[in-house]
């Protein structure tokens, strides 16, 4: 099956975005297929095509970079968009004129898009309705004719994948076809792929776990130990489920690989951007300085901003999100935040099943 898949695809597979995860996805795909990688920056294209390396990443020989998004859409039928959520809608808008209903898009972006009435910002909104918040697959459906859409989520730390360590991921889609294609494309001896029909749920797993990743970084920064981290992970899980369900995800999805699986990996990974944000905040730095230093976006920061509003609007208890919001944007110290959480009055262990 796996072997057969190597020859199933006549066309190259597209990847949009040359961030660390985009490169990792391109390398994974390259094991089975020819890959066309779109990068905005001509320097990146040049480097990948000539030296097969970029930044600290070594690229598979099957990866070919291009700078022309129209060409990407024309040559590829299956495309993996992996760009930060803040640029996602723009990117799809640019790609959209070249997309057809036969295209299949499987994204791997772990953020949310805000679709507010014209001229309004998040701060202006008294209440956020579900239609104001879009997952990335919803952005694709909004902006293009593509309907066969899926997402990729799971514990996939880019540098571990680059080292060829074993890992697994989840592909979610309403279409079995999309899941099967994703599986054929990505499966290898050291990469396992699970399917899930709950597209929204799986997207939200990836999105919401970043909140907990920031918190986990903070715990490390404060050197609070592993008991505290386990506490955080399990309570974070509950919070993710509350928020996720409010936005249309299914509880079951959160206890799978993309939910608890990814949460454990991210909470322990000292290299992740979100973890770093939390860690440095705990050491007393302020958000602005931290973000200035970072080359790539920490999605968790924006996710916290939106999720706090969601929690208020949908009347959901989300103490971790709320307290992190105060640390990030209102100058509360991490020590005080931890104190607050430890005194939080409600302590029912499991009430979501």
């Amino acid at each position: 099956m796996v072997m057969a898949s190597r020859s199933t695809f006549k066309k190259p597979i597209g990847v949009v975005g040359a961030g660390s995860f985009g490169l990792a996805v391109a390398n994974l795909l390259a094991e089975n297929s020819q890959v066309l990688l779109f990068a905005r920056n001509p320097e990146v294209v040049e480097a990948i095509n000539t030296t097969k390396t970029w930044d600290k990443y070594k690229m598979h020989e099957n990866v070919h970079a291009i700078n022309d998004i129209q060409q990407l859409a024309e040559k590829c039928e299956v495309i993996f968009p992996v760009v930060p959520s803040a640029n996602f809608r723009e990117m799809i808008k640019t790609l959209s004129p070249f997309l057809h209903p036969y295209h299949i898009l499987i994204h791997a972006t772990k953020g949310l898009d805000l679709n507010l009435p014209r001229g309004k910002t998040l701060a202006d909104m008294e209440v956020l309705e579900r239609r104001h918040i879009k997952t990335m697959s919803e952005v694709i459906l909004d902006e293009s004719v593509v309907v066969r859409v899926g997402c990729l989520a799971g514990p996939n730390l880019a540098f571990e994948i680059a080292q060829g360590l074993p890992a697994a991921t989840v592909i979610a889609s309403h279409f079995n076809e999309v899941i099967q294609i994703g599986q054929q494309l990505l499966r290898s001896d050291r990469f396992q792929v699970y399917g899930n029909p709950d597209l929204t749920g799986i997207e939200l797993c990836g999105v919401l776990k970043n909140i907990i990743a920031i918190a986990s970084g903070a715990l490390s920064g404060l050197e609070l130990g592993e008991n505290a981290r386990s506490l955080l992970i399990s309570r974070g899980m509950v919070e993710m489920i509350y928020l996720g369900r409010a936005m249309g995800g299914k509880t079951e999805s959160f206890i799978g690989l993309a939910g608890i699986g990814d949460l454990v990996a991210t909470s322990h990974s000292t290299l992740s951007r979100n973890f770093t944000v939390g860690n440095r905040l705990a050491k007393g730095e302020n958000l602005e300085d931290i973000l200035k230093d970072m080359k790539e976006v920490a999605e968790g920061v924006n996710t916290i901003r939106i999720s706090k509003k969601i929690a208020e609007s949908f009347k959901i208890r989300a103490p971790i999100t709320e307290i992190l919001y105060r640390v990030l944007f209102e100058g509360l110290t991490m020590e005080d935040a931890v104190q607050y959480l430890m005194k939080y009055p409600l302590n029912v262990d499991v009430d979501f099943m």
Partner: protein
Amino acid sequence: MFERYKSKRKYEPILPGPREWPVVQISKNRKEFVQEVSDIAFERIKNTTRNKTALIEELETTLFKEKARIRENPWKVDPDDDNSFWSGVKHKLLDLSQKKVKDSDEVDKILKEIIHRYADEIAGNFNTSHYRFARGVATFGFNRLLNAARVKKFGSFWSDKLTMDDKIQINGEVDKLREMAKKGTIVLVPTHSSNLDSILIGWVIYTLGLPPVIYGAGLNLFNIAIISYFMNSLGAYKVDRRKKNMIYLETLKTYSSLALQKGCESLFFPGGTRSRSGMLEKDLKLGLLGTAIEAQRINFQEKGDAAEKIFIVPVSLNYHFVLEAPSLIHQYLEKQGQERYYVENDEFSSSYKIITFLFKFFTKGSNISVSIGKPMDVLGNEVNENGESIDKNNRIIETKDYFTYQNEITIDKQREAEYTRMLSEKIVTQYRKIARVFSSNLLAFAAFEILKKRNKKLDLFSLLRLPDEDLIITYEELKSVCEKLKKKILERVEEDCMSVADHILEPIDSIIAHGLLNIGMYHSKRPLIKTKEGDITTMDMNLLYFYRNRLDGYGLEKYV
């Protein structure tokens, strides 16, 4: 009242004569068509059952359900040999179960017999001369009745002053619909609130010059000889809602799909049955709708780019008065109150009942409007004047591309099921947009929501049981709420997400007067009346709720 003076357009038939009507083609070759349906349905069912054992199980389940139906819920229209046929099946299955080695051919034979019986039962008996006759009788008769009743003199029975056109307005995308009917195959998907809908839509189709459509009509309507004659003549095929077994449903879907492939204009009520609550349909039945998507894919497979395109056209039928409202809302509330199984009943059990119904309607009935929505492709994309699908930015897209993978059309049932779900969402959105708000809907909504707001703590059932003295609303209060709602509704009309009847544009006092006059006008208990003191009250909360529900789901409650 300026509606009366609108110029009435006459529409030429888009296909010149009956010989060109696809429905004539299939009814002429009825026997062959039934056989074709049977053969394809047989393949389908064979493909969905894993093996022989599973098939035998399916047959046994079907037998069990059919036996139960015959015992517990027999109808007049059921064929005389119903019992003996199923007893025969029972014996054959029994014989089979006693054999050590079960003969595949034997099993297939039983399945084929059942399918053929179903296909034959479903198939319509369209007949051109009957169609003409029935249509003539219908229009002639209705016009006469109308005149007799309006002018209230027997002599005026022969007057030609008023015609159906005066009572029934057709608005919306009429020209586009006619255009698309020339370019491809039309599937009309109307809202469904009354038994009258089938007849009304038949009249609309004729008026618009469209060739006759085939449509699934509840088998119960065939219980009465005269109605049965009309239904058959107008292109109806039979849908028996009592039969919920897989073999029947697959045969029915095959029938619909094949007719569409042959270019038969079709009609489904995608709500499945009349809206019990009075609400616009929200959850559509996906079975028959899916056949439009399947037929489109097969057309592409067989004819490539030259394939006939199938266009989905949502239609909203708007009434001030639904004769069956009392029993519909009763059933709805009963079901809401306690989840329990209720038997698919036959309200129209006698000719007398249905004739009084029609008579009441056509003599006393209030104005009706029919709104034609935008034709869409089977994925719910808009189409341009050439019938090409377009995206949000007016770029032409190929419908075929939805069915292809690596340049090949692939058959993927799960994909098509998902497309069906997506299409149903598009239809529901269109319903919300094209359903015309009448004065009666506005009034009912305002009055009900005022009472609800007054009694915030009550649940629906307690609210419906409020004592009479708590049901009085002052005229001024109603007026101010109507005013606010009207403003909000007109804003949405501007945004192109709601539609209103012309009378909604008049001053609020005349809207209220119009609404009071028209709302549920021939119910013995009126949903809204004016008291001697000039206040407004209801004689029947359930009915008020029913008429209010048409505006449910627009989020207008917060403006009350």
